[in-house]
């Protein structure tokens, strides 16, 4: 993998993680154009790293780390956060085989999405990464720059807080 052509490696990583990165960013910023911009910038930073010959051992963690940092920068510039209901956001589609209960499930998910947005940022990040994107604890520790134990504690607390809001 390390000896791969940068273009091949980029293509491979891009197709493996683009959906997850876009979803993560979208959940965080709730704005289609911003999500596109941040996702684009995230992958271009990854491409730049490959182009410069940098060895990226864990591309998934690298991408989430970059995306998270860009989201933080975005909010730092805006000074306030907005929440857009799930029904109103464009560019994401609900994919399920259970068509009979599709509307009901969408409603439940929309409610959960709204409650998730009420949590503090680090709790949101941890829950999205661990339960939605299924990132392993050591990788999350790398992304959020905390110890694995701290991450486990955060997962527990974030879940408890989200449960309390429902």
């Amino acid at each position, binding site marked *: 993998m390390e000896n791969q052509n940068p273009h091949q490696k980029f293509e491979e990583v891009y197709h493996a993680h683009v959906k997850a990165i876009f979803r993560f960013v979208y959940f965080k910023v709730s704005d289609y154009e911003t999500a596109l911009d941040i996702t684009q910038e995230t992958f271009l930073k990854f491409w730049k790293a490959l182009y410069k010959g940098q060895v990226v051992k864990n591309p998934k963690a690298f991408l989430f780390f970059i995306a998270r940092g860009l989201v933080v920068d975005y909010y730092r510039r805006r000074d306030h956060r907005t929440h857009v209901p799930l029904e109103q956001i464009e560019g*994401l*589609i609900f994919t399920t085989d259970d068509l009979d209960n599709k509307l009901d499930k969408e409603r439940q998910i929309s409610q959960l999405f709204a409650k998730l947005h009420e949590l503090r940022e680090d709790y949101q990040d941890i829950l999205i990464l661990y339960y939605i994107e299924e990132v392993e604890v050591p990788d999350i520790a790398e992304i959020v720059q905390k110890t694995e134990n701290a991450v486990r504690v955060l997962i527990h607390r974030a879940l408890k807080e989200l449960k309390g809001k429902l």
Partner: protein
Amino acid sequence: MNDNELIEKLKQLKKLEPSQKTLAVLESRIKAGQAMPAPSLKEKLGTLVRRLQTRPVLAAGALAVCLLVVATVTERNLVLPQAQLLWDRTEIALAPNRFEKAKLALELSQKQLYALQSTKNQNLALQLTYLSQAASQTDGYVRALNLKGEPGKYTMAQCLAVYRTYGNYLDTLKGTIQNRLSSVSDQRTQAQLQSLLSKTSQYEQGVDSKLRQYPD
């Protein structure tokens, strides 16, 4: 709602995926952005270092260049004279006629003699080798001169001046070698000096016989 139910609901959020249109927009934007700007000098150096780390042959070549630079800086007396010698020899080879060749060869021999005079005992063997080669080459070119000169190239007077300069040079060379012989204890170097002294005497005899052919 218990924890497991909540976790299952959270996992449902993964079923929200970017649409095909969104993916297409993203892909086209990223492809456009992949046309990288020219990297800065710092980035180029960083890239070079990383590439050297993964390519041992290239790294060995770069190391050799670095060592040559370090050797040039720290051992100027050893490396620079060799480069200069190569240049001087090329210049002699390219000279237009035997008179110019003889003059340049004599200049080179004089340089080698000055170098020997300013060298203590460090690199003495190498210096003697260069000097011996230069003296031999000069003798060959000077002997090849036509004593009466060659039309359009050099006159008899110019040839005589070269012979006299060469004679003086051989005289100084002989004295320098004799001085060295008394200060050097290494047998190999002594043998080198003796050999050069013997050659110098032969060259001197040759010059004397030529000079005798000139009218007073």
